[in-house]
Every structure is written in structure tokens, then in C-alpha cells.
């Protein structure tokens, strides 16, 4: 019995040891083969987008604007803004000088009193208005409020005696007090000079008999000599330079001046050569150029384009827009009188339109104008025989915004969009694990636009290996229906499903690029139907991906036995 028990115990121990060894192997991860049988199938939403034209409008910058026009639908605007230079750099008072020499004879002519001689007088200093350095002869300045200005005095005496000099400008006042200054010379200090910066003074140019452009200057000189006899010779020389005027405002009649506005070029990106999109057939119903100006000059002015050219890409010619149509409203031959400010600090504004009625825009736009270049001029007081008084402020400006407007009212017959996306999905699809793949695209179209789409699978040399959309006639987008007012009545949904078989998925392993081709047209474009695009229009879409895996093989070697067995 004991023997049996011993044998039994030994057998249990031996069996346990052997089985334990086998058990241990089950947990030996070095034996993990990577052999997997797997056939999961997943459907996941990838991306979605809800895009409205309003959102696009909010993001575009000043040079390209998509916004609602006065008609309530959208226009594409290409803008440029030009303006006159700073007014003080255009129109200003030039520097003036005043010189006076007083000899002993001049003193003597006024008599002596208590060992002293005195001499006083009043004269005029004339100013002129300059336009960029050139004197405007007919300008009549009435008054000026100074921000700042400089008075430079230089005095020189050869009397060898004590001299007391005072200078006063009675029409240059501040708080009712005239501008005045005084100097003292003696035997030791025979010369004196001084530069004075004045601020906040008013200058009245109407106090002389001329009533404009002049101001009076008064002076008083006292010569004290020590002995009983006045000096026999000598003279006092006085030089005053007045300049560097920066004014707050200036009133008067400023004469005829040409104010050159900056030139600028408006690029029309819509028609620029693009790799990504191309429009073959289009029609804009009412293209126009709008010139909107703001004028804070208190001066009657006439505005015209010295130059207004465009380049028509289709004809490869530069075309003069301003002179080709006699009705063009702002040509040199047909200038436009712009409104002007009647109150300092307040600007006048208005708009002038260049459209199919006063220009050749209907001929220009179909030929794809890629830019408009212009240079504008404003002429002041063009017809002011009565010298109606003008004013300008320190910040007076004539500013104009030139907008080339393409109202989205018309039709697009053949719009092509091409894009290339670099992809490398070889690591995902290269192991033949994917049995089937499907891309689901749902669109919710609120645009009156029909569209088709195609994706091409291309290798590294852009050789097309496959196309993904098999039903080439199927619409990617179906135009949303319009109501009686030509406005989209409701959105319309379209579903596109791109199915890829294992063979197609295999081809994707060599895919380095996906070429995207989109073709679109507005609804009824081929019947010459036009329509307007409104801001509320938009499109929503979502893309989903469905992948069926079918794996029977080693995930380390990447060999799918199922594929090998079926010869796929």
C-alpha cells in the first residue's frame, strides 16, 4: 500500500512538473507570434464643417471684401484707398524775412533828448501761400491759428553805445496780447541774436490796407550815449526771419492748386492666373467701380483721374478706362466737382459710380481684368472768381476709396477647382489588412450651385493610378431650389459614397498624392439663367469613414494569409 501511495505521489509530482513547464510556455511572450485573426468593421465620423458666406465675409481683409451690397446680396470688392498728402506738406506759408538798418542820421532826424536818441516806426511783412514750395500767387490769406512757429532775431550795432530795441507784431496775438520782444546792446555786446518758438498764436492778416497776406511790425530803438555829443557815425542792423509755421487752421482764399493723390493699383485676384481654380464661362450682371471720397478741405475742388488703366489678361493689353468712353465721369476732360467741408473738423463725403452706362466695363470684365491702376488729382478753386473764402485744418484731407465691385449676380458656367493633397497611407493600407473602405460624404447645400467631384490616386510622379468616384455623373452638390424671388428656398442634401475594394486599397499603398477635381456651375447657367448670391447662403458637410478589416496572418510580417490564399 505504501508503495502504491509513493508511486502515486511521484506520479503527481512528475505530472505537475511537466504540466508546469507547459504552463510556463503559455506566458512566454517571446513565443508571441503576432498571428491574428481579425475582421472588425468600423464606421466613424471624421470631419464636419458648417460654412456660411457670412463667416467668409467676416474673415476677408480690406483688400478683398465679400460683403452685402446695397441690393441686399453679395458683392466681391477689390479696394484701394488713396489720399492727399498731409495738408501742411502741401499748402503752407513760406518763410519770410524782414531787415532794417537804422543809421545815426535816422536817429538824428527824430531829434535828441537827455543824452539819448530814439527811433521808431511801423512797417509790413508780406506772406505768400505755397503749394509744395511753389507760390500760389492769387492766394489771399485772412487768418491763421498757429500750432507753432519760429522767430529768429539778429541785431548788430556799430554805435559803440547803449542801444535798447523793442519789436512788436500787433496782429500776432495770444490771449489778446501782441507778440513783442526786446534787446539791449552796448559797447561790449554789439551784436545779439535770439530764436523764439511761439505756440498758440493767432495771426490776423487783414489789419493792413491790403487786408490779406500782410502783417504789421512795429519797432522802437533808443540810443543812449554817455557824453554830451552823440556819436558821429554808426548803424543798427535788424534781421528777423519768421518761418516753420505749423498751423491748426488757415482761412482765406487759397487760389488754384493741384493736389496730387497717391497712385495705386487694385489687383483683381479673381482673374489672376491660379493653379487651383479656373473659370471658363462667367457673366457678371452689373460690375462697377465705386469712388467714395471724404473731403475735409473747406475748398471747392474738382477731382479727376489723371490715369486709370487696366490689364485685360484675355487680350493681353493694357486698356485706358478713363479716356475710352466720353461719358467717363472723372476723366481729365470730364472732371468731377467734389463736395467740400463747410465747417472745420467736419468732412463731406459722396460716391461716384463708374458702371456699364458711363464706361466700357461691360467689355472689360469678360476679358478678365487682373489689375486697375490709377492716379488721381484734385484741383482747388477751379471756378471761383469771387474768391469765396476757403479754410483748411491741420488734418484736412481728401481721401478716396476706389472699389472695383463684382456683384454676385450673374452666372458661372464652368468653374474648375484643382488641388493636390500629399498623402502617404502606405503604413496603414500596405499590409492588406483592409478588405474594404468607404468614404461617405454628406452635403447639405444651401447654394444654388451644382457640383461634381473626382479624386485621383497618383503615385510619386503624379501618374494617375485610379479614380475614386465611379459614378462620374453623380452630383456631389445639387443646387438648392430657388423661390419666386430668386432666393434659395431650402437646402438640399446629397450623399456621395466612395467605395474602395481591397484591390483599390492596395493601390493606395503606392499613393503619394490625391488629385482633387471639382467642377461646378450655378443652377441653369447653360440656359443663361442669372442669379444672386445672398449672405445667408452656406453649405454644411460631413465626412465619414468605414473600414472593414479582414486579417488572418502575422501582424509582424505584414502578410495577410487570407489575401495570399484567395490570390487577391
Amino acid at each position: 500500500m505504501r508503495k502504491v501511495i509513493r508511486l502515486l505521489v511521484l506520479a503527481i509530482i512528475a505530472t505537475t512538473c511537466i504540466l508546469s513547464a507547459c504552463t510556463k510556455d503559455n506566458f512566454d511572450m517571446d513565443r508571441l507570434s503576432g498571428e491574428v485573426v481579425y475582421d472588425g468593421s468600423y464606421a466613424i465620423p471624421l470631419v464636419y464643417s458648417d460654412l456660411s458666406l457670412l463667416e467668409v465675409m467676416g474673415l476677408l481683409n480690406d483688400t478683398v471684401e465679400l460683403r452685402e451690397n446695397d441690393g441686399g446680396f453679395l458683392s466681391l470688392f477689390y479696394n484701394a484707398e488713396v489720399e492727399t498728402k498731409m495738408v501742411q506738406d502741401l499748402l503752407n506759408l513760406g518763410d519770410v524775412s524782414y531787415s532794417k538798418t537804422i543809421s545815426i542820421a535816422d536817429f538824428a532826424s527824430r531829434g535828441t533828448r537827455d543824452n539819448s536818441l530814439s527811433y521808431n516806426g511801423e512797417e509790413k511783412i508780406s506772406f505768400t501761400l505755397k503749394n509744395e514750395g511753389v507760390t500760389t500767387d492769387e492766394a489771399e490769406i485772412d487768418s491763421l491759428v498757429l500750432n507753432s512757429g519760429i522767430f529768429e532775431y539778429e541785431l548788430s550795432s556799430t554805435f559803440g553805445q547803449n542801444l535798447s530795441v523793442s519789436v512788436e507784431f500787433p496782429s500776432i496775438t495770444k490771449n489778446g496780447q501782441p507778440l513783442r520782444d526786446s534787446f539791449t546792446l552796448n559797447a561790449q555786446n554789439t551784436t545779439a541774436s535770439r530764436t523764439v518758438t511761439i505756440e498758440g498764436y493767432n495771426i490776423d492778416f487783414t489789419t493792413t490796407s491790403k487786408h490779406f497776406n500782410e502783417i504789421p511790425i512795429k519797432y522802437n530803438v533808443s540810443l543812449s550815449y554817455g557824453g554830451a555829443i552823440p556819436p558821429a557815425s554808426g548803424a543798427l542792423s535788424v534781421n528777423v526771419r519768421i518761418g516753420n509755421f505749423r498751423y491748426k487752421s488757415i482761412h482765406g482764399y487759397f487760389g488754384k492748386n493741384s493736389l496730387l493723390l497717391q497712385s495705386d493699383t487694385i489687383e483683381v485676384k479673381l482673374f489672376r492666373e491660379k493653379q487651383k481654380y479656373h473659370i471658363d464661362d462667367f457673366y457678371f450682371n452689373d460690375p462697377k467701380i465705386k469712388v467714395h471720397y471724404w473731403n475735409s478741405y473747406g475748398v471747392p475742388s474738382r477731382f479727376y483721374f489723371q490715369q486709370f488703366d487696366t490689364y485685360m489678361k484675355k487680350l493681353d493689353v493694357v486698356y485706358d478706362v478713363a479716356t475710352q468712353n466720353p461719358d467717363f465721369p472723372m476723366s481729365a476732360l470730364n472732371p468731377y466737382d467734389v463736395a467740400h467741408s463747410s465747417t472745420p473738423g467736419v468732412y463731406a463725403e459722396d460716391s461716384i459710380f463708374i458702371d456699364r452706362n458711363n464706361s466700357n466695363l461691360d467689355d472689360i470684365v469678360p476679358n478678365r481684368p487682373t489689375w486697375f491702376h490709377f492716379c488721381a488729382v484734385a484741383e482747388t478753386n477751379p471756378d471761383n472768381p469771387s474768391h469765396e473764402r476757403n479754410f483748411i485744418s491741420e488734418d484736412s484731407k481728401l481721401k478716396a476709396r476706389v472699389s472695383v465691385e463684382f456683384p454676385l449676380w450673374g452666372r458661372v458656367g464652368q468653374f474648375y477647382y484643382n488641388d493636390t493633397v500629399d498623402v502617404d497611407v502606405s503604413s496603414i493600407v500596405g499590409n492588406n489588412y483592409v478588405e474594404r473602405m468607404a468614404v461617405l460624404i454628406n452635403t447639405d447645400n444651401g447654394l444654388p450651385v451644382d457640383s461634381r467631384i473626382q479624386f485621383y490616386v497618383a503615385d510619386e510622379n503624379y501618374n494617375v493610378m485610379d479614380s475614386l468616384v465611379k459614378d462620374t455623373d453623380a452630383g456631389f452638390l445639387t443646387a438648392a431650389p430657388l423661390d419666386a424671388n430668386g432666393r434659395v428656398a431650402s437646402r438640399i442634401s446629397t450623399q456621395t459614397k466612395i467605395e474602395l475594394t481591397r484591390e483599390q486599397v492596395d493601390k493606395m499603398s503606392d499613393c503619394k498624392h490625391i488629385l482633387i477635381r471639382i467642377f461646378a456651375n450655378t443652377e441653369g447657367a447653360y440656359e443663361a439663367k442669372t442669379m444672386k448670391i445672398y449672405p445667408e447662403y452656406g453649405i454644411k458637410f460631413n465626412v465619414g469613414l468605414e473600414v472593414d478589416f479582414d486579417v488572418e496572418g502575422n501582424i509582424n510580417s505584414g502578410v495577410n494569409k487570407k489575401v495570399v490564399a484567395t490570390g487577391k
Partner: protein
Amino acid sequence: MRTRRTIIFALVMMISVAAMSQQANTLYYMNRVFQSQTVNVSAIPDNKIQIGGLIVPVFGQVPPPMYFNYGNNSFNYNHILHYGAGDMKDSLVIDLPLLMKKAKNTIAIRNELRWDYLNFSFRSKSNATFSVSIADRLMFGTTIPRDMLDFVINGNAPYMYEGKMHDFSKLSFSANGFHEVGLGFATTFASKFSVGARMKLLFGMFDVSSKVSRLSVTTDPETFFITADADFQLRKSMPFVEITDTGINKDFSSKSFLKMLSTFGNPGVAVDLGLTYNITDNMSVSVSATDIGFINWMQDSQVASANGETIIEGAEIGLSKDENGKLQYSLVNMPQKDSIGQYILDTVVELFDMGIKDKKYIGWLPSNLYVDFSYRLHEKLSLGLLYRGEFYRRTYIQAVTLSANSNINHWLSLHASWSFIDNTVANLGFGFSARLGFITWYMVTDNVLAFVFPQKAKTINLHMGCNLTFGHPKKKSRTAAKL
């Protein structure tokens, strides 16, 4: 390569090798061991006095007084990784179809580790038994709906085309640890009955758990949009991690660890109840319910709640301006590579509008019901039929055990069992108790095969320890409770 293997092994071990509450069916009949009272509190021990636990010098630690249990009602290790056929006969292969085939509607994975510090019982002449126990218990349990496994492995497309939703509402997760102090009393009455009860005071150390009322995912076949409908809570009570509005503060210092071990801030209470009826001298029935109770998690507790329906449409792409002011069509809120984890977390929180609050909550213990019928064939051999049910978080797990139990002589008892546990009949149990003088060793498992073939085991458990016993009946070994 090595890393990938390690990850695969860890994942397999996590989901295949992990029953949460006391699953000790063979122990139920070991009436010479005081620990059988942990599953049937109405059992009256043979010995007058028993003392056990780590507190007992030397004998209390050899072997360590512990209980370990793991159970998985669906699959074992070999249902995921096993040796292949043909060229692959020496290699382990991953078998996902087999895993799916074995998965039940609810995959229940349970794990418990228990350390006994003190076990003491005293039986009076009138068979009234008083007991005191102090133990630490660590529990881990998760219930995974088959739909979730199906979603991950087979994908969502099959259900989508069938127009079905993936129902995850039975998903649950719980990991916690607590100190347990038990005071028990058992007595006989009316000559044929014995009744017992144990009041247990619980002091929670840590808890991470979920409470899912509603959770489902539906995929729309027309758009592939995924609609998630949820009403769930994620709860935690532990000093290591604090979730704030700005992120997660982690503190894994020894101070936090000591705070966790020494805290009395998470009080709880539980009760064990038992009743035994000796129908005849040879037949008895008993009913026992254990771990009916809860812990009030109050300290460092936070609850993240989500309630609502959300539709996942994918990543949003839209127009924006690039750094040069140029219009671009790109992903909105594209995450930086180094913050993708935080992005996903933020997205989930945002999707379900999850609110995180410092809030106490109640966590129920997994409770057990035992129903036993015993028949004594011979003076030294009795047979037992035991039914066990475990209720936890809307999941009910059942097991049946047939056993043969023999008190061979006054110092040795042997126990053998065959169980249907975790949906498998491959559970042969064995146990013994041996008394040498005043020392009684015991060891018992419901599945001895698990120690030989762990890769094929859905149930692995072991209960062992050593008690100092005094006042043992010298002659015929009778169990007052059973016979």
C-alpha cells in the same frame, strides 16, 4: 517589439486574470476552521477557543493568513492567447474571434485580496459563539458589457447596419480597499437551529469606481455620426489625486500613503447573517448572506457626473486665418502634439458636459448569498450541495458546488469539491485542516487545477492560515451546526 509583447501580455492579464467578494465555496464546509464563519456565520466551530491572524507570533504568519480570489465569468487566458496549429503550434497566437465567442452578455471580472490580522472565537458550553476579526481587504471588480467588447473588437458597423445600439449600461468599475473590524455571535436554539450574525465596521482607505445608469452608443448609417447617451458618475476617494478646474494634482508621497492607511474618514458598516436548520441527524440546510453593507466615502472624495446625449460628428474644420493673415481651411482647435491626451480628456468632459464636485458618496459592497444542503452519508463523510450568488451593481453571478467532506479523524479533515463557477465546470476544489496539538493549519481552494493550468482557469482562489485552537472535542468529531 518587446514593448509591444509586454503591453499585450499586460492587457491579457488584466482582462483575463483578475471574483470580487468572498468566493470560497469549499471553505463553507470546513467547520473545523473558524474562517468558515466568514461565509456562514451560523456555523458553530468545533473548538472552544480559536486564535489566528498575523498578530499571532510565528504560527500566525506561517502560512500567512490570507485569502485571494480571482474570477472571470467569460474567458480565460487561453481564450485570448493560445498555441496555434500547424506552423504556429509552437507559437502563441492572438485569437479575438474565440474571445468574442466566449464573452457573456456581461463579462464580470472580480478580484479580492484579504489579510487577516486577528481572528478570535470563543464558544461557550451552551454553544454560543463570540468572534472578533480584524482584516484588510482589497477589491477590484469590473463588469464589461459584451456590447463594449463587440464595439472594440468587431467595430460599430455591424450593429449600425442592424439598427442596434451598443448598450454599455451595465459597465462598471470598482477598485477599493478598506479595514474591516467584525464582531460576531452565533448560537443554537430550538435544538435544530443555529443562527449567527456579524456586525462589521468598515474604514475605507481608497476607492475609484463608476456608477453607470445609462450608457449607450448608436451609429447613424446615413452619416456615421455616433450618438452617445449617458448618465454616469466617475467617483474617487483617495489622497493621491485631486481633480481641479485647472488639471489634476498628483501626490504620491509617503505622507499621502500613510494618510490613506490611517484614515478613519470613510466609515462604513456591513453585516453577515446565517441560519442553519438540521432537518434530521443527517440532513441540514443553511442560508447565509455576507457583506451586506456599504462605505460612505467622504474623505478626498470627488464625483464627476455626466448626464445627457451628445452627437459626435467628427472634428470640426472651418475657415480661419493663418499667421500671415491668409485664409485657411483647417481643423478648428487643433491640439498640439504634446497635449493630445489633455485634448481628448477635455473633449470628453465637454461632450458630456461633465461637472466635477467635491462630494461624498456611498459605495455598496458586493454581497453574497449562500444556500446549502448537506447530507451525512457516513459518520466520517458528508456530501454538500451549495448555491452561491453574488449581487453587485446590477450584475448577478451564480455558482453551484458539490462537495464531499470528511473529518477523517480528530485531527485531520479533508474536503473535495466540484463546482460550476464562472460558467465552467472545470473547477475541482480541495481543502484540508490539520490539527497538531493546539495548532490547526488549513488550506483550501475551489479550483486546484488553476494552480496547474492557470492559463485555463477562470477561477483562482486560495484561502490559508493557521489558528491556535483550544478545547477541541477529543473523540467523535461532530459539528454542532451541521449534524
